[in-house]
């Protein structure tokens, strides 16, 4: 368990993420009045918020450096914030602006911040193999950076995740897989779709250490993550960590959640990891004012980011044609080499094609 300063840093990440998403939600719902229309308003498309899951991101990312790589799934903001993604440019991206992280091409499910070592994507478990690849690169280059792939508990039955466990294990790569178990995969409760209640058990079949943190406790997450990440950094191979979190909202904005028992929603609301960490901080002698000022600073940064983002220009329609490739379509050259191969060769009249 870290010292008070570290806990405060986690607290800061968590309240930043929570407030950030409250603000996004407001903005998102804004243009969608009176009837909810997904394509209307300043933030169109799907929006997956992570309120209630902040402990997982803060506890894990605490132990990461800029040169470590994180891949996150469709519910990425809390992880991005904890990993140190540029808040303004992320926000501009979510608002689809030209100065967004991806120039408005990615949107909230496809945020790329290579400086912060962060990427996310929208297909279940899709970030796992690239995280293994980042681990592979570190191992090949003899660097001590690590890679962390986040996924939901609904993703633990997807081939891309399971294959990644094996590849990371057999090559002993510095990778940590983090399952955020929020009990739900959209409308599907986990017992309906998974044979194990404890997702970290998946590790067993791959001879990999697996641990589950059973409460929304940022400190416990941090402790478990410290061990797993430390193991990876020390070249002792990959591990799997599952963290119980709670989904305080619908799967995406606009989700009616009619499938969800009220008791479950209430329980999620009650289990607030932020309040829990605040209580612990108070217990350790941190003043209410300190916590309050952390909150206020966070809110200020968030408000600033959102204001900034909304001021940014929209991309022009023609920008859509850029960035399919990084190099010209022709590659590193556009000139034919000049050789004389003889006529026959190019006319295919040579005989014998085999070794």
């Amino acid at each position: 368990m870290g010292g008070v300063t570290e806990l405060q840093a986690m607290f800061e990440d968590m309240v930043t993420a929570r407030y950030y998403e409250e603000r996004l939600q407001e903005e998102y719902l804004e243009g969608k009045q009176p009837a909810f229309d997904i394509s209307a308003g300043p933030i169109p498309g799907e929006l997956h918020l992570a309120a209630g899951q902040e402990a997982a991101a803060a506890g894990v990312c605490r132990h990461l450096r800029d040169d470590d790589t994180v891949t996150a799934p469709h519910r990425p903001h809390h992880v991005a914030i904890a990993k140190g993604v540029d808040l303004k440019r992320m926000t501009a991206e979510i608002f689809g602006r030209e100065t967004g992280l991806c120039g408005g091409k990615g949107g909230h499910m496809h945020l790329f911040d290579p400086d912060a070592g962060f990427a996310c994507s929208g297909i279940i478990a899709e970030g796992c193999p690239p995280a293994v690849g980042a681990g592979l690169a570190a191992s090949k280059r003899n660097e001590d950076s690590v890679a962390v792939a986040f996924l939901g508990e609904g993703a633990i039955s997807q081939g891309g995740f399971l294959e990644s466990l094996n590849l990371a294990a057999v090559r002993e790569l510095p990778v940590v897989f983090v399952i955020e178990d929020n009990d739900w995969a959209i409308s599907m409760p986990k017992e309906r779709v998974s044979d194990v209640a404890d997702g970290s058990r998946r590790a067993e079949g791959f001879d990999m250490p697996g641990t589950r943190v059973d409460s929304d406790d940022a400190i416990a997450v941090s402790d478990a993550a410290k061990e797993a990440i430390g193991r990876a950094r020390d070249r002792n191979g990959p591990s799997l960590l599952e963290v119980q979190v709670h989904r305080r909202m619908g799967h995406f904005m606009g989700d009616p959640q009619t499938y969800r028992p009220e008791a479950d929603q209430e329980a999620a609301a009650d289990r607030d990891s932020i309040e829990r960490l605040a209580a612990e901080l108070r217990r350790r002698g941190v003043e209410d004012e300190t916590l309050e000022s952390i909150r206020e600073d966070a809110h200020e940064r968030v408000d600033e980011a959102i204001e900034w983002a909304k001021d940014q220009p929209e991309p022009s329609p023609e920008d859509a044609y850029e960035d399919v490739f990084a190099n010209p379509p022709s590659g590193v050259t556009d000139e034919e080499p000049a050789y004389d191969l003889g006529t026959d060769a190019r006319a295919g009249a040579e005989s014998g094609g085999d070794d």
Partner: protein
Amino acid sequence: MAESEPEPEQEPEPETEDDAEPQVVERDLTMSRAMVEAIAHEMREDEEVFYMGEDVADYGGIFDSTEGLLEEFGHDRIMDVPISETAYIGAAVGAAQEGMRPIAELMFVDFFGVCMDQIYNQMAKNTYMSGASVSVPMVLTTAVGGTYNDAAQHSQTLYGTFAHLPGMKVVVPSTAYDAKGLMHNAIRDDDPVVYMFHKRLMGIGWMPAPDGPKTPVPEEAYTIPFGSADVKREGEDVTVVTLGLHVHRALEAAAELADDGIDAEVIDLRTLVPLDTETVRESVAKTGHLVVVDEDYRSYGVTGEIIASVAEDRLADLEGVERVAVPDVPLPYSRPMENEVIPSVEDVAAAVRSVRSTESGAE
């Protein structure tokens, strides 16, 4: 004229930029040797290049795509991987985004279905989705094609499937010379390149190649640009557009047709993305007749694209079009049926004759 200079270690840019006579190349290589030579060269030059795939190390690649590389580079850089294409091709994406330059092999293109998400939703899209804040400098090599009775799950080319989805450059060499120059460009390119080599052209001992793919190959490195079709045979009467194995079948057909006084131009596309429509259009402007020959399925693929790209810009030039391709059936196993569906030399010749004799739409 200078002999071809064996300087594989250094990198003299080979193009004679001035008006000097082009260098005469006399060393013949099989397509697989040429491809491997390019890979080896790039691996020597750049520590970040590595190769991964199934049976690429000790076996040397089922289709000789890595023959001999293990000996020089060892298991760390010529990596056998678990049979989990999603994991290792996705890992190549991840390593590429970290700045390495992986080459990942999908043993047969027919297996794409187990790993297409990493290929097309990550490898091909991450540059775009990130607004080019990341790039994915990797090569995906894969063996394509039929003609040896390996049936529906091991005989396809799927050229159209890959070419249809944006974000990947798609390369299909037909000769050793092209294979090497295109591979150099593929590895050096910062973009994902799908490099589809036809098994029948590689010059594998147990799968005799036709005449043609074994060509003179310069010893030094050289790059062939993508999007530059190669006129493998000039002709006045009909334009035959094709790629891969069928370049050689088309050339054979052209030789036959020449006996009958029909002068066919044979264009080897060499890459599908980018597509050199200009060379095709110019040729059709000259010949007026277009035959497209493809070893992929007929519908919604290469043949349709080539014809449409001429029709939309040069409709007036077109006097007749025909396509020759696999007739929208899976590849059957047995010899009479496989021979029936994979375009033969005779099919190409017949299409050329037909396109010349009847104006399309004249029925």
